[in-house]
């Protein structure tokens, strides 16, 4: 149906799209997901022929956009980010104009316009001037314009942006209905939307496709490893050392410690009194949140329990981690960000391997460090990293203050707060 072959759009002064390569088969509803400025709109504009790609080619039903633009464009319906409407025109005149423009045969125009108006709930508004339509109706009219000529491929750029929740639900329902007849490519940065509409997700970041799969598979593929988060009362250094010694455990990362380990004076009195700590540099026993990743997919929870019981360190919380789509998205897009800071890792989604220093800057990706890098992120390294994190979240923004790091940062702050409450 649609083949996008190694398409790039290069700009001199800003990031474009770099080597996008995917194909869609008939009847798919594909969600195109990515943070702002990732290249979603640019890619869609190239697919619809609004922009010419710098490199690569786009085929619809095996016909190239560059060679036969008219033939290909006839098969595509496109709803840009802002619906392309003429505010001065009436709804009926506008649809008539689009029908002429899109080669809808004169005989069937009236019938087709009637059908579309009916389908999108625009009945009774045909005589209205577009300027007077509400945002929701404009979006519907934009959709009407896109499906008027019964295209095989429907390209929708953020079809639900700027709508109220009720309208969003209606538009989604419509898209699902449209998906029964058409192949749909829609872009969004709203994650639940993808879950509810699409049967395939493409995640794009920094102009590259970083992931491709079914929404549920996508989450599954990234949770192949067995991950557990632990909240333990104890000494940070001791815990990391003890847990790393368990043979099944591949990696231990400290997420947060309730008392800053470098400044013992700041540690809370209750904790140090309870433990009577022999290690002054640890600032006494505290509540430590850890992330434990098992070597292969073995369940390490029991081993963790017995080991900590033997140490006399109570487990306050233990969670098996499963990634939601949101996590997948964050992970993929923020890992990519980290790679840019220090371009040592591969750009592939699953191969992204942030080093310990980098994970310190971003709390969330630290949780999902690749097993391959576990050797590098040794226990002391990760503990100092977490100390850095704790102090930096308390005082100011972490080193990387890019937009996509923001959610990660707030997450870290929240967990830090939660820890304080515990203490």
């Amino acid at each position, binding site marked *: 149906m649609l083949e996008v072959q190694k398409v790039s759009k290069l700009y001199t002064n800003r990031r474009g799209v770099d080597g996008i390569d995917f194909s869609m088969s008939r009847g798919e509803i594909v969600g195109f997901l990515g943070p702002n400025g990732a290249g979603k709109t640019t890619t869609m*504009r190239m697919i*619809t*022929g*609004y*922009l*010419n790609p710098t490199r690569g080619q786009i085929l619809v039903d095996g016909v190239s956009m560059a060679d036969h*633009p*008219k033939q290909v*464009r*006839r098969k*595509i319906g*496109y709803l*840009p*980010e*802002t*619906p*392309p*409407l*003429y*505010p*001065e*025109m009436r709804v009926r*005149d506008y649809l008539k*104009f*689009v029908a*002429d*423009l*899109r*080669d809808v045969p*004169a005989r069937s125009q009236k019938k087709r316009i009637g059908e579309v108006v009916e389908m999108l709930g625009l009945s009774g508004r045909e005589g209205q001037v577009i300027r007077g339509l509400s945002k929701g109706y404009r979006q519907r009219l934009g959709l009407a*314009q896109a499906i008027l000529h019964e295209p095989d491929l429907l390209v929708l750029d953020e079809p639900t942006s700027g709508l109220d929740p009720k309208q969003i639900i209606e538009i989604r329902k419509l898209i699902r209905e449209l998906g029964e007849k058409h192949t749909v490519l829609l872009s969004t940065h709203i994650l639940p939307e993808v879950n509810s509409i699409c049967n395939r997700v493409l995640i794009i970041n920094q102009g590259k496709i970083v992931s491709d799969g079914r929404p549920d598979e996508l989450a599954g593929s990234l949770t192949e490893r067995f991950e557990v988060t632990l909240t333990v009362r104890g000494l940070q250094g001791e815990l990391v050392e003890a847990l790393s010694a368990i043979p099944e455990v591949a990696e231990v990362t400290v997420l947060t410690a309730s008392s800053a380990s470098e400044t013992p004076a700041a540690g809370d009195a209750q904790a140090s009194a309870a433990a009577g700590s022999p290690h002054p540099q640890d600032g006494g026993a505290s509540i430590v949140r850890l992330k434990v990743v098992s070597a292969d997919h073995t369940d390490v929870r029991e081993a963790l329990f017995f080991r900590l019981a033997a140490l006399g360190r109570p487990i306050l919380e233990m969670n098996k981690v499963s990634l939601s789509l949101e996590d997948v998205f964050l992970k993929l897009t923020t890992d990519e960000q980290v790679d840019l800071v220090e371009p040592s890792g591969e750009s592939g989604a699953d191969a992204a391997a942030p080093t310990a220093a980098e994970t310190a800057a971003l709390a969330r990706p630290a949780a999902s460090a690749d097993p391959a890098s576990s050797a590098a992120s040794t226990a002391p390294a990760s503990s100092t990293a977490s100390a850095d994190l704790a102090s930096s979240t308390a005082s100011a923004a972490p080193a990387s203050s890019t937009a996509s790091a923001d959610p990660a940062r707030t997450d870290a702050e929240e967990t830090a707060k939660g820890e304080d409450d515990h203490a």
Partner: protein
Amino acid sequence: MRRLWAICRKELQLYFFSPTVYVAFAFYFLVSGFFFSMDFLGNQTVDVRPLFSNFMVIYLFVIPLLTMRLVSDEMRQGTDELLLTSPASLTEIVVGKYLAAVILQFLLVVGALIYPFILSRFGALDLPVMWLSFLSLFLLGAAMMAVGLFASTLSAHQMVAGIAGFAMILILWMLEWLSGSILPKGGEWLQLFSISARTVNLQKGLLDWSDIIFYVSFIVVFVVLSIQALERKRLR
């Protein structure tokens, strides 16, 4: 062809939905009517010739006003995404828009026929001179429309497009004077390209085909330039 007419029809609809056209027409008839009455009542002669230089000057102001929104408004509203992703080719889009502008120009010229009509009540007119003068007026206006259309492809802001169009037309107009004063040597050569100088023969009642070919090719050049300017946007 149907797409071309669809675009032309839509442009005309939008013209008459927007106040700009009414303001431009009102301005045109107000000022030309004023000059007409001054000439006619002042000299008390039945002569159409003095009228045309006035019309031409008014065109200088009215035509950029009429063409400035042609393409720039599409870019501002994002409707260029509709046009450029439709099966219509850029040629169809641009020619359709230009056709709408020329129809408007035709209305301006036809509207101005009222003055010779009034004059004809008071005496016999030199009809060949009158018709050729109106032809020159139409050709000049159509050429200016093409320049205005091209200016409109350059910016998404109507005002910028309007001012750019005005400046371009003014320069093409001034080539006549520039040729005499500033460039004494290449002057004659430059004068060939002045859009206003080409009306002189027609308004004397001389039908020189080179003048007509000049205007037609001038229009073609600017329409092609407009298509190219839009084509470049795809490569942005």
